[in-house]
């Protein structure tokens, strides 16, 4: 297995960036209960340090694919490799950010953020120190002792993000992380995510159904077709993200690409 993985990195098509794939899916099929064909023949490579969006209409299998990569679901056929090794379940190099936040209502922000470390058996003072760092990193310092029901949706998702960052995984899997928050919070969160990427050297795989979000955030966009989900198109938006966020959102490349993707997806909707 390793020999093959080492022989292959140069085979990636990317022009300038010589990034190696950290996650790779091979011929993934997923059939639910013998009848619902959710995913069909998904072959993808996710490069180290990049942010890839999985974009597609709802019900096309985005969550299913992300959970298969996370090791939370078994594919019916095919396999996932992380760092060249086949995945058999969840692993320390991957951390999940849940659409509905998945916070413990009975635990404070700090304990929630430290929970991944708690499960790993890290001692209390050390895990709280690391959690505190990431709670601060996601902009929630001062809220460590609050409970989830005292926070807004956006703040709760930041706790979920802090928890995923605290375990220091290489790959962050985010399932529609901004879908449950209002539009202003969403934009602020997207900008913060861009800044976070400058500080943290992580690979992000992000599920979204928002074209604007995918274009604004991603190094690479994977368009999935409706059920059975297949890879429709892979797009590498080359958008310069340094600078004023509002200017980026008005830039012609940004608007053109959004439009192009919309035209591509439109046939599915109609």
């Amino acid at each position, binding site marked *: 297995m390793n020999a093959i993985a080492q022989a292959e990195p140069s085979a990636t098509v990317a022009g300038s960036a010589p990034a190696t794939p950290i996650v790779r899916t091979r011929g993934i099929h997923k059939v639910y209960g013998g009848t619902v064909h959710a995913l069909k023949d998904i072959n993808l490579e996710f490069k180290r340090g990049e942010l890839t969006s999985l974009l597609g209409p709802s019900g096309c299998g985005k969550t299913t694919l992300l959970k298969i990569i996370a090791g939370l679901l078994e594919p019916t056929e095919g396999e996932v490799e992380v760092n060249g090794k086949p995945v058999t379940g*969840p692993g320390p190099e991957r951390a999940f950010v849940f*659409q509905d936040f998945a916070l413990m209502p*009975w635990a404070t922000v700090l304990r929630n953020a430290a929970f991944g470390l708690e*499960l790993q058996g890290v001692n209390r003072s050390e895990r709280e120190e690391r959690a505190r760092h990431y709670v601060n990193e996601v902009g929630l310092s001062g809220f460590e002792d609050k409970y*989830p029901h005292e926070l807004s949706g956006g703040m709760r998702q930041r706790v979920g993000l802090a928890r995923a960052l605290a*375990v220091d995984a290489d790959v962050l899997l985010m399932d529609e992380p901004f879908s449950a928050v209002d539009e202003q919070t969403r934009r602020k969160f997207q900008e913060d995510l861009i800044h976070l990427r400058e500080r943290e050297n992580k690979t992000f795989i992000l599920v979204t159904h928002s074209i604007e979000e995918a274009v604004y955030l991603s190094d690479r966009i994977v368009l999935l077709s409706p059920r059975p989900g297949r890879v429709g198109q892979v797009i590498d938006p080359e958008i310069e993200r340094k600078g004023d966020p509002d200017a980026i959102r008005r830039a012609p490349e940004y608007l053109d690409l959004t439009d192009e993707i919309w035209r591509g997806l439109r046939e599915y909707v109609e």
Partner: protein
Amino acid sequence: MTKTDTVPSAIAGGVTGGAMTRFAQMPVFWRLLSLALFFGAWELAGQSNFNAAFPTFTETFAAFVEMVLDGSMGAAYLRTIEPLIVGLAFSLGVGVAAGVAMGLRRDVEFLTLPIFITMQAAPMAALIPLITFVYGVGLASKVLAVVFLAMPVITINSYKAVRNVPGSLLDMTRSFMGSRWQQITRIILPAASPMMFAGIRLGVAEGFSGVVLAELLITPTGIGDLITYHRSVANFGHMYATIVSIVAFAVIAVSLLYHLETKLFRPEKRGQ
């Protein structure tokens, strides 16, 4: 006593929990006033003599004081409380364990769920004469009566509570590589506890019914005996005093349980 923090009713745990929270949050003055109104209405109704067997509040209260002082009330409670406590302890231990096991494991669910559903739906009071037939008129029958009434609701609620734990919380522990044991102790049990406690409160209330029914139907002892005796000699003040005292005792026991739950298990509901 003057807690005024608000608790979202969704996490307050069931109907009894919601109503209880609201009552506990009422300022003391209003709580006393509502009791005073109730006793006032009772007094007036008693004085109107609409029914010879209906005593006034003051008569009833006097009878209560008399029974406390002559020791008959205390003696009755000592008798009644024994099968109640034994039966509730058994129902809690076995009921919660069975419910949790049913929630966690499909095989246990298939084997035992039908029994508990039948027990919960059946009018268990109808079985009490049958219990007597098998176990005689002693302590065992009364304990069994308490268990029959209290355990089904405790078990079924514990089972449903475990089943209702959000899937994403379970996925979350798995994604951070928590063991099954960690998942059960740190996620499933705490997440299930509000609904489990709602079931326990209902079960305790049912247990009171069970013990009183047993004492009325099996052999007159304790509180059941006191009620039967005072009815037979037409001491209606004493009879009402006994009934009201057991109702109040049940209400206090259930409220204490609610406070205990909040204190021990729900840190997010405590005022900060």
